[in-house]
Every structure is written in C-alpha cells, then in structure tokens.
C-alpha cells in the first residue's frame, strides 16, 4: 500500500477535483442525524459525522429500481440498459467500505452476477475517512474496523493533516492533480499509530467481545432468549432498511395507466417482514416474530460467516439506533456473553 500525506486545507481542492468528473456523494446533516447525499460544494460535507440513518447501499442497490420495461401491444421487453453516473463517495467509514465489500461477494458472485449492481458498483469511487466510534459502534468486534480493500483513497486524520492510503490508480491521479501529497515522515507515522490506538481505546466497552458467537448460536438455536426478543419485535423492517449489508429484494410488475405498458421493479425486502418467507399456497416458513428476528441475527452473525468467512454484520450500529424494540446484534452478543461465561 502506498501512503502519502496532505494538509487538511487541501481537502476542498480534492473534493473539487472529483467534482469535475464525478457526482460527489458525502455525509450531510439530516435533522438530528446525518445522511449520504449529493453535494455541490465542500462546505456541505460533514466529515466528522458520527453515522448516517441509512447506508451507502442505496447507491448500489436502490430502494426501488426498474429492471426492464415491457409493452404488451408490441409484445416487447426492452433489454436491460442502465446509464450510470460516475460517482465518488467522499467520506465513507471503514465499516461501510467493508459492507460494500460484503455486498460484492453476493452480487458479483460469478454464478449469478447482477448486471444492475455491477454497473452501479463499477461507476463508484470510494474515498474513506477515519472515524471515532460512537456508543453504538462495534465494528472492531466484527473485524470491520479497518478497510483493507475496497477504496480508492482512505484519509486517516492525524491532526491537521491526513495520512492517505492510495488504493487505486484513479485515486492516485486525482490526489496528485489536486493536492501536493508528500512522503510520510516518522512523525506522521507516530501520529498515525497514536490516532489508531486512541480509536481502539474509545470503543464502547459495554459491548462484549464473544469470539465464539457463531458456534454458540448453533448451540442455542431454541433458547427462550429468541422468544423474548421476538415478543418485542414490531415487524417493521427498519433494521433491514438501515442496514448496509441487508441485500434482500422483491420483484414486482407495475403497469402504466394504459394497462398495456409497464415495468418490472426491484424493491428492498426484509426477512423481518411477516410475508418474507410466505410461499405459494400460503405456507409461511417463518411465521412468527421470534423466527424472523432469529433468522436475521443468524444471517448477520452466523450464516454468512459459514459461506463467506466473514460476519455479514459490520457493527455499524445503525439498527441499534433504528430499532424501537432494542433488538440488535449487541443484545445477542450480551446474551451469549452470559451463556458462554
């Protein structure tokens, strides 16, 4: 990995350089929280944001997208076409870069590639930025606190300046053209180490580290704990809406007013939706909040690990904030800490 250092005064120029060829998406204020949004100037960006209400997922898997259109009179289905605006995400935290990496594993699986996802993903540059953990962050427990791949540039704040990890040629070129990147000095490296240590120390210590969580979950699949969790669930799907790695979707045809033309749409779906596992004939494979909440937690902390060797949960904490019923992976970790002890 190549490292360079830039001054914080150089950031506006960096953003402006990206704006020449890309739509810039960055964290902005949204009520009492933050959201990723299109920005027109550097001043709109809140680089020291905590977390956003929803994730970057919407840029690769929109909440609603047209897959193709059809015309019954002409008996025609239009071929897939998608004009993607090249974008740069400016200011992604490590957990969210790792979330996109996990989505890649799903949608770019060579057995069933998803052209819609791939087109959007290909047009996406990522500039990461370092962060300070909030009360609800536990990415360090999910091995998602550091982005090893999946970015073009990563900016590590080392006090008045940034240590920039360069992850791609495009990233390097834009950096070169907009800033005066210099070699990192020993002093920079020391500052980097200090910043890293400070961050590691500031994670919420009330969230337990349960190394063997996946295994324990296998052993306690029928524990009354799941009944209790399910009894609180509102069946609202807020958890999956905000989650950066929930990738389930539904597909439906929508007709135009003339009843002859229309489009096939893909919309987000969620396993916490009561109808998610209902099949033709009306049987529901997960017919209670208990079974649905349990399923979600297993996919996040157990199932994905088995196939992809990493947790699907990145510990971003969004569902912790969004779930009114206080159902989240943190609750599961706490429960199994007690069980394991």
């Amino acid at each position, binding site marked *: 990995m190549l490292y360079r250092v830039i001054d914080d005064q150089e950031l506006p120029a960096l953003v402006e350089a990206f704006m020449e060829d890309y739509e810039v998406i960055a964290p902005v204020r949204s009520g*009492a929280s933050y959201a990723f949004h299109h920005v027109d100037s550097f001043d709109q960006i809140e680089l020291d944001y905590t977390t956003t209400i929803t994730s970057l997922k919407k840029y690769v898997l929109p*909440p609603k997208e047209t897959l193709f259109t059809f015309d019954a009179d002409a008996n025609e289905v239009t071929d897939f076409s998608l004009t993607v605006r090249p974008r740069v995400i400016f200011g992604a935290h490590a957990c969210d870069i790792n979330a996109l990496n996990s989505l890649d594993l799903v949608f770019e699986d060579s057995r069933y590639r998803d052209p819609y996802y791939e087109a959007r993903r290909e047009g996406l540059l990522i500039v990461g930025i370092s962060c300070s953990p909030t009360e609800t962050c536990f990415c360090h427990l999910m091995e998602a606190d550091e982005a090893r791949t999946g970015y073009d540039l990563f900016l590590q704040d080392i006090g008045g300046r940034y240590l920039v990890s360069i992850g791609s040629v495009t990233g390097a070129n834009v950096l070169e053209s907009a800033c005066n990147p210099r070699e990192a000095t020993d002093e920079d490296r020391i500052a980097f180490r200090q910043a890293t240590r400070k961050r590691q120390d500031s994670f919420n210590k009330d969230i337990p580290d349960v190394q063997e969580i996946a295994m324990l979950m296998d052993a306690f699949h029928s524990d009354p704990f799941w009944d209790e969790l399910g*009894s609180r669930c509102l069946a609202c799907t807020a958890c999956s809406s905000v989650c950066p790695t929930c990738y389930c979707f539904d597909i439906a045809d929508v007709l135009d007013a003339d*009843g002859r033309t229309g489009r096939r749409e893909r919309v987000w779906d969620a396993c916490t939706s009561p109808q998610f596992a209902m099949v033709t004939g009306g049987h529901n494979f997960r017919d209670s909040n208990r079974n649905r909440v349990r399923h979600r937690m297993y996919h996040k902390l157990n199932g994905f690990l088995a196939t992809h060797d990493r947790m699907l949960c990145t510990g971003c904490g969004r569902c912790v904030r969004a779930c009114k019923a206080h159902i989240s992976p943190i609750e599961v970790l706490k429960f199994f800490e007690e069980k394991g002890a």
Partner: protein
Amino acid sequence: MSETVSLHGKRPRVIIIGLASCFGCQLQITNMEPHLLELLDQIDLVHWQLASSDPLPEAFDIAVVEGAVTTKEALETLRKVRRRASAVITIGACAATAGIPGMASRDFDDQVESVYGAEVPVAAGSLVRPMAVSAVIPVDWEVRCCPIDPADFMMALQRFLTGSNRLAPTATLCGECKRNERGCFYGRGQLCLGLVTRSGCGARCPNLGRPCNGCAGVSPDANVAAARVLAEEAGVPAQRFDVALQLFNATNEDVCPSGAR
C-alpha cells in the same frame, strides 16, 4: 391471490358507490386527470354515484365501494353489490377500517342521541353501529388510506383487469420511514402510529414532517402490546397511544377493545 374478472372479451362493467364518507376518495379518482381517460378506456363505467342518482344497475363486474357501513340500507346495498359483482374493491380508510365514522361505534346509542336527540330523522336512515365493509361482505381488495392515493386505485383496478398475485403488505410503517432517511418522532417525545400501522403509503406523513395517524389501519401483524410499552418508554403515555388508535381503528376489537382501556 386475485383472479381476473371473466370478461368474455368485453370491457368490465364497473360501478362506484359511496356509503358513509366524505367522498374525498371518489374525488381522488377524478384527480387522476392525466391518467383517468386511459383508465376509463379499459372499463365500462356503468354507474358512478357521485355523478348520477340512478339506481344501482342490475349487472356489473367490478364494484368500487367508498365509505363505512352505518345504516341498514347500506347493509342491503352491500349484499346486493356482492351478489352481482365478481370483484369488490373498497377505497379509503372508512371502507377498510370504518375510519372516521367508526369513531361513533363506542357508546353508539349515546352518540346517536347526542347528535339527533330522541328522534333520528328519516333522512339519516336506520342507523346501525358503524362497520368496515369487510365486516359485512367479503372484499377482494382494499385500497387504504385517507384519502387514497390514485395510483393505488389504478393498481387495484388493474389487479382485476390483468391479474396479480401481489399481497397487501403487513409489515408496519417504520421500515418505510427509515428509507426516507428521517429521524423519529419518538426521539422527540412525540407520538406516531407508524409503530403499528400497515406499510404501503411510503410513510408519507412522517416524510412531510407529521406523525402517522394510522389511516392505513393497524396491520394484522402489528405488535400493539409491545408498541405501547415502547411508546411509554419513549415518554409517550400508553393511554395517549390508545386514544390515538381510535381515530382509524375504533371498530377493531383487537386494537381498541370496547371494554377497558
């Protein structure tokens, strides 16, 4: 799962009638201006109560019903409608949940007396305790909310013109609200019925900065008991939650039991 109306190559004959309601949902249909003619092209609108005082036709395929049932006459009409129509679509909260008229269902006799005195005028009909249309006859599809979204009405008609196996959603509203990237009223100690209300409207009201009033009705999969506890935790007394629920769910015994609370 809906089946298309059997047409034998003809355009389906459609009637639109209103029971106890403000006629706002029927007006919403006329508000579809850009699409109304395209839609009318596909059907044979044989009777629209808003535009005619003719009696109910003898034969039709699809009946669109607005409003709650509040009279014996309405009960009769609905039974007639159900016998004649292959598909019954209701529009609006009043038809789906008894809606605003449903609020009179509690202490019904007292309510009637306080409005009409001892003698109910003949023009009011023979009053019965307000009911949703589905409490009287089987309904094939309900277009929800107060008022309806014309696009939802269009989709409902198309269900029976072309067929569709899409289910009415039963997940509650907060998931849609989060997609709008909005904070939550409960964080500010305000009440919002999104916790238990059926999704489908796209969390329209919270997106406009107003709490959900629950006009889509409480979802059959809602967890009202848990929601009351959570509201209380967030500084909204459960009793206020119960009162708010009465606006659009007064005749739902599971949600607003006529006894306690």
